[in-house]
């Protein structure tokens, strides 16, 4: 289980960000090049397109103790593969709605469209998301207790 508190006992969330290679990952790179900081709690996984993100990945992240999962892709209409983010948009909307229906905090998941030119936006989005997740606190509803126990 990841360490989730700082030395002074503050909650440090674990956030998994799936970023499409062409827009959002490049946007994250631009944020880096521009030295625009966001919390180190955010860890990025590169995927070719937001449509590569399987609901399984999201649930697995929560199962293993992630506190928030964010999916970033090209703006609708700008997908490198023309239509990928449109499919991702429907899938994620329905999945998030289902998680909400199951009583999971609806702000733990998010989709944001960030272009390769939006380094500033990328950092703003991550700061904002991390802020929300920190406020929500630890994800208790979806994590896999077994994972926790085995490492305790």
């Amino acid at each position, binding site marked *: *289980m*990841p360490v989730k508190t700082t030395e002074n006992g503050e909650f440090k969330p*674990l956030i*998994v960000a799936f970023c499409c*290679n*062409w*827009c959002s*990952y*490049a946007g*994250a*790179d631009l*944020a*880096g*090049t521009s*030295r*625009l*900081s*966001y919390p*180190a709690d955010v*860890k*990025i*996984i*590169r*995927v*070719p*397109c937001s*449509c*590569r*993100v*399987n*609901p*399984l*990945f999201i649930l*697995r*992240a929560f199962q*293993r*103790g*992630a506190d928030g999962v964010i999916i970033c892709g*090209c703006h609708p*209409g*700008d*997908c*490198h*593969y*023309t*239509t*990928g983010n449109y*499919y991702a948009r429907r*899938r994620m909307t329905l999945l998030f709605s289902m998680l909400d229906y199951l009583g999971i905090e609806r702000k733990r998941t998010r989709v944001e469209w960030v*272009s*390769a*030119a939006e380094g500033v936006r990328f*950092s703003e989005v991550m700061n904002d998301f991390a802020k929300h997740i920190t406020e929500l606190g630890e994800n208790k509803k979806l994590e896999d207790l077994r994972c926790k126990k085995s490492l305790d």
Partner: protein
Amino acid sequence: MHRIGVFVCWCGTNIAATVDVKAVAEAARKEPGVVFATDYQYMCSEAGQALIRQAIKDNALTGVVICSCSPRMHEATFRKTVQAAGLNPYMLEIANIREQCSWIHKDIKEGTEKAIILARTAIAKVMLNKPLTAGESAVTKRALVIGGGIAGIQSALDIAEAGYEVDIVEKQPTIGGKMTQIDKTFPTLDCAACILTPKMVDAAQNEKIKIFSYSQVEEVKGFVGSFKAKIRKKARFVDENLCTGCGDCTSKCPSKKNKNEFNLGLDNRPAIYIPFAQAVPKVAVIDAEACIKKKTGKCGLCEKVCSAGAIKYDQQDEIIEREYGAIVVATGFNPIKLDKYDEYAYSQSPDVVTSLELERLMNAAGPTQGTLLRPSDGTHPHTIVFIQCVGSRCDDARGKSYCSKICCMYTAKHAMLIREKYPDTDVHVFYIDVRTPGKNFDEFYRRAVEQYGVDYIKGMVGKVIPHDGKLLVQGSDLISNEQVKIDADMVVLAAAIEPDPTARSVATMLTASIDTNDFFTEAHPKLRPVESPTAGVFLSGVCQGPKDIPETVAQASACAAKVIGLLAKDKLLSNPCVARADESLCSGCSVCQNVCPYGAITYEDREFRIPGPKRSEIRRVAQVNEAVCQGCGACTVACPSGAMDLKGFSTKQIMAEVDAICR
């Protein structure tokens, strides 16, 4: 057995300043499967790459993780490196500990912790990497140029020069673009037509170049090396092959009061017209909206006077399908609409004109035959005020955030030409900054001030008030700290330029990306300025960003060089990170086919062994055409059984990454 090597780059101090690289290497060494880990100052340097190659050989590594800058930067470099050491180039993963770690975190402890997690994530992924081999595909040796302005013409001429076929598709009835409307060019004051029209003629006469004027690209399918385009050749109601361009029809046409687009509506043209004297192709076109015959069925005068018999009232749009190996986007620009800036009274007075309109008013082929006259009353203007940055350099809510780049220079040109031709005219230029970076540019601007006595006022105009046939211009002079009021006869607005409105649809069609201003995005702002991130699509001219003519031509030729480089290849290696269907799991349900944007998935009946007396059964299973698949992964999520997976980004690999991050 995995034998993974981890290489941590300092990137000078770029990484090493906020990440303890030694600690990262140390932590990586403890990961299962890792047999070697080290750090080095510059992994991408020749010495760094040699270190990697040596380590691969010495330690018989089966996979390599490099903790360095973004994979978008050096993934290709390091793939070559590991390949040179005998490893499959896809047995490499990059942990991005610069852009997504050292550069954004200030605390070394925090940075190091995150870098270790990123390294461990890459290690978890590389353990599941499989050797991949790039596929091959053929190259159609023909290029498509979208847009026939100076950019498109120059790219086409250069590509044709190298011996390849080029098609230019231009939506106007003639090629030439905006440059045809310009009178003189800075900083040499050449006549624009004199330098452009020979190029237009060259393009028309070149055997390798085919011009589709009055045409638009409607659909593009395929991928680098083998695009298939549908071109709509709009009906011009004149047979292009028969028309001699004599102009008899245009002088006889009774429908004469139609806005002349070439002169920006400053005068009129007939319903059948040739845009201008040097048009290429020099063929008449009928404006169906204005043609009396087309509207009422009566008239037919042009048909009667045409000795070549070229008039075809029943001509239909034609769809032409052609194949291309490369596509050049040269869709150009337009001045912005000025309705948002009514403080300058553009809509209130005909004597407030845009700079492009001024070009027409000063051009010998323009509405005034080159004599500068006020559009309102045809008198000579004696006081002219130029206003810079109209709609440029604004905040996003007010206009374009960028500098349109060409206005400072053309305004100096206009001011200079007016002062030269009409020395009795007072010329004032309101400017915020005068930007003249370019060869002989500042000298040119200084000449306008020093030699021609143009009055440059540092400040902006607040408003223009039309009154009694004059224009009261009120602005600030920041240097003398006073508000100035000038009673002017004409006001010229340096309107910002914006990409042609077709840019967005062209970008969508080509799956190329555009920025928030609709300029096409280049593959790399510095190192790949003429390529789009979409393979096989190249950028020429202002469609990529504001440019003057010399820059446009330079970029057009650079773009041509890239196209030639592509067309010179017989085979292209394709990205091996494509989808693959596991036939043993596939139930042939077609959901993957439904979401594939490339039509890369087909179905085949295959025989499978099954338990039971029948022993085998025929099943419909998905097949991926690897040359067509671009590797987006839409199918992998649509597939409920997980039969569809993406090489290089497999479900297992991404799951391993998730697990490594959440450990």
